[in-house]
């Protein structure tokens, strides 16, 4: 770790005005801190968002679940309100990384980092969530741009995420045996605006499987997608899995997610 300055503001505006060109926001730190420790990243200053009360918390009404950016995975996993409104979201949060990661990691940090194998992007894209920042609101379809790239500008900070409550939704994940990130994870939701199928871990960025969406729109059942393959070209390949294997996992996980949907 290289040395850096550290600030812990108590308000959103204060945090945004504190951030300079070579500075970084610190959320749960589950990616940033190990990267800094390995000297793979460097910051002049860390602006710790942990002291900003308005970024934390969960609220649920008839149509939406709203989660503050600095809400930890464990809090989403354990929330009775989330469990009752969108059980798949609570299930997803309870399977992120390990207990230590869930006790520190936050939804805002996770989606801002946009790791291609992170779990939350699948939930946002699958549920058609909206990301709120200090400047604007961004639909999940527009938020996740590419590998570790989002629509966020330099001085833009995620404040909360709103999830429309679906008719039913399910998430199935095949964890990377080593890291327990998603080797492939599929989030399936039947919503007022149609069926959405979001895939994480298999490509450079979370994406929608539109063939499956079409099939599930006419029949929301695992059998409806049993014949649908995903083209492996363009999917990720690394020491953990080939593109062909990930393509297979998309089919298997999608079917499991549909079966699990509630």
């Amino acid at each position, binding site marked *: *770790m*290289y*040395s850096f300055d550290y600030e812990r503001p108590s308000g959103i505006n204060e945090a945004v005005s504190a951030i300079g060109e070579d500075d970084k926001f610190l959320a749960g730190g589950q990616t940033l801190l190990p990267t800094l420790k*390995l*000297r793979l990243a460097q910051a002049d200053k860390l602006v710790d968002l942990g002291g900003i009360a308005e970024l934390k918390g969960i609220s649920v009404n008839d149509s939406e679940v709203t989660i503050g950016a600095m809400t930890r995975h464990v809090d989403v996993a354990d929330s009775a309100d989330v469990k009752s409104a969108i059980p798949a979201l609570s299930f997803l949060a309870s399977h992120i990384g390990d207990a230590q990661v869930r006790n520190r990691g936050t939804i805002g940090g996770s989606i801002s980092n946009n790791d291609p194998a992170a779990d939350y992007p699948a939930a946002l894209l699958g549920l058609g969530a909206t990301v709120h920042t200090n400047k604007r609101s961004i639909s999940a379809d527009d938020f996740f741009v590419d590998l570790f790239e989002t629509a966020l500008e330099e001085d833009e900070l995620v404040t909360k995420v709103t999830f429309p409550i679906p008719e039913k939704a399910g998430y199935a994940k*095949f964890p990377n*045996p*080593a*890291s327990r990130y998603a080797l492939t994870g599929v989030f399936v939701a039947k919503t007022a605006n149609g069926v959405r199928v979001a895939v994480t871990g298999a490509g450079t960025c979370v994406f929608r499987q539109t063939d499956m969406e079409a099939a599930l729109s006419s029949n929301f059942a695992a059998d409806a997608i049993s014949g649908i393959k995903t083209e492996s070209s363009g999917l990720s390949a690394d*020491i*953990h*899995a*080939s593109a*062909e*294997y990930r393509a*297979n*996992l998309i089919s*298997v996980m999608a079917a499991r997610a549909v079966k699990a949907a509630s």
Partner: protein
Amino acid sequence: MSVENGIGASVRRKEDQRFITGNGHYLDDMNKVGQAYGYFLRSPHAFAKIKSIDLSAAKAAPGVVDIFTGADMVADGIGGLICGWGITSKDGSPHNAPPHNSMAVDAVRHVGDQVAFVIAESLEQAKNASELIEVDYDVQTPVTNIAKALAPGAPQIHEEAPGNLCYDWELGDKAAVDAAFANAAHVSKIDLVNNRLSPNPMEPRAALGEYDMGSGDLTLYTTSQNPHVARLIMSAFLGIAPENKLRVVAPDVGGGFGSKIFVYAEETTTIWAARKINRPVKWTADRSEAFLTDAHGRDHVTHAELAMDNDGKILAFRVSTQANMGAYLSTFASAVPTYLYGTLLSGQYKIPSIYVEVQAGFTNTTPVDAYRGAGRPEATYVVERMMETAARDLGMDPTEFRLKNFIQPDAYPYETPVIMTYDSGDYPLAMNMAKDMIDYSGFAARKAQSEANGKIRGIGTAAYIEACGIAPSAAVGSLGAGVGLWESAEVRFNPTGSVTVFTGSHSHGQGHETTFAQIIADKLGVPIESVEVVHGDTSKVPFGMGTYGSRSLAVGGSAIVKAVDKIVEKSKKIAAHLMEASVEDIEHDHGVFSVAGTDKQMTMGEIAFAAYVPHNYPADLEPGMAENAFYDPLNFTFPAGTHIAEVEIDPSTGIVDIVDWAAVDDFGNVINPMIVEGQVHGGVAQGVGQALLEGVIYDEESGQLLTGSYMDYCMPRADDLPNFRVATTNTPCPSNPLGVKGCGEAGAIAAPAALMNAIVNALGKDINMPATPEKVWRAINNN
């Protein structure tokens, strides 16, 4: 008379209180006044010549105390690291052991090779300065794969080792084997890869060097499994300091699995540098360095063939192996694929003739050496995958095939065609017990049930054997070892009756403080709370060969028993004098000395007190109650047993679920059944890791390590493992006074073969370790 907490009792481990409450004394917890911090600049390249190193900017950086390179150590007369076991090739030539400097002199040969040692007031400053060192590398094409390294035209890694060959070794009667194959009714063949593993002890390696200018004494605190051997090598071969001026201390050490046996560059450099700067220097590896530099394990490629008669009886076994040594020859690396491997290829079987040849070679990878089991897991993997394949080829049940070919319980001592003389055992008993425990006969019904659920079930067996209690000095000496593998102990009574035991074994998780105390409690009636076990300090313990190869109890424990025998002998003389009887009439039972046929008796405590306050004492006896013993075993010990694994595979993902596991191990007599069971659990977990999850991967083109963190190198976790059914059989070992065989490695030796046999049984075809979900899925889907 039975004794509380004696031999056979599952006593809770005395040492766990301090470990669990964070009161252990691990190396990085230690700090010395005036201490500086060391950091190694390491090679980013797998293979490169060093054209120049410019330290000027780095030396001027804030906080830098000094920076050293390999050239500085050479100029100071410090020798290279050594390999302590000489192997002779088929043609009679000694193995090639190219120079292995602690820091690179003219070339780097693996990613992570040491280039410079930066010492600063803080670790951050040392790291910052290391980034200012300018090294001009002439990058060479690397080779990481052993088959490619030994093929013609491969990059030449060391001038001293043409064709990258370390040795081309053989064992057994080639002509007899060839003849048996020529006349065999059946021949089965198998090709195997034994994957490369990273040892991953919980505590990374570390060193703290200290120099006393007044006395000239050097003290090295280090994470060692064998501090005396480290001192011997550093003194005799590297010239760090004479043995009497070098103290090596290994305090609480957080696991080793073999990787802390070896004398490494970093520890050596740290103690040398402490004298150079006349200040204490501390170096602690981070996890990335551990992946790059802790000696790896396994990495064999093997072809094996088994010849059988019409009746399914084994006639001969032929094995050819290529073993990857890495970039340099580590401390005991040469012995692992030879005398710790080829000598175990008879397994539990009566095989009339065996021939094995092993080519060991260099690659641009981290050195490979002993890792839990060391050679014996490789042997068991070859033998037991071979047996399963042969049974399948013959259409026989694999357990019946084994039972037909086992060495029978009345055949001991049994001399194998590959040097070893097995001393005791009952192989059919262990196999039949394991089959009962796992309901082997009910497998077909369970398989049908799995099939109905869309799953594929498999069952696999491994009947392993290992040679432990390493080792009879004369035997290993004749095979090329540079050391004798005896052990020492001192049992010292304090005047008030408590006992301090000094052992040359070293505990880094094994529980010696409890097990050895149980021996004292049992033999001398001393409560285990009153027994202190001291280990890991060359200034306290007479000498020691350390802990590895499941040797601590069989060899170190036997040394303690020999010292206890001397204590008893002396105590009898004192008791006879004090109770006015003749020595012949004194009877000893668990620390109580009585005069035969009378009610006169004295306790061990009373006698020890009399020995230190000898107001009324035999005229011909020395006062005091402390005895030393050195024990050199008569033979190896031969733990053996059967593990059976049952798996269920999900064909849609290829994921392997281990649904059942039966382990029956013959460890001879058992001192603490709970600790033994824990060792079996841990060993099996490591074996499961090898079979399913673990594997060091290098990029073949660049030689970069791709599995350099836990994000990519997969360690087994609790939820990867089933509940184990564990049992022991206990045929006492005839070659040591405790009748014990050793239990530390059995699980890691048996598990990979049992599990892979189960997977192969389910799939109906061979795959190599690790059996990752994708590999299994591809095998099922034929792509």
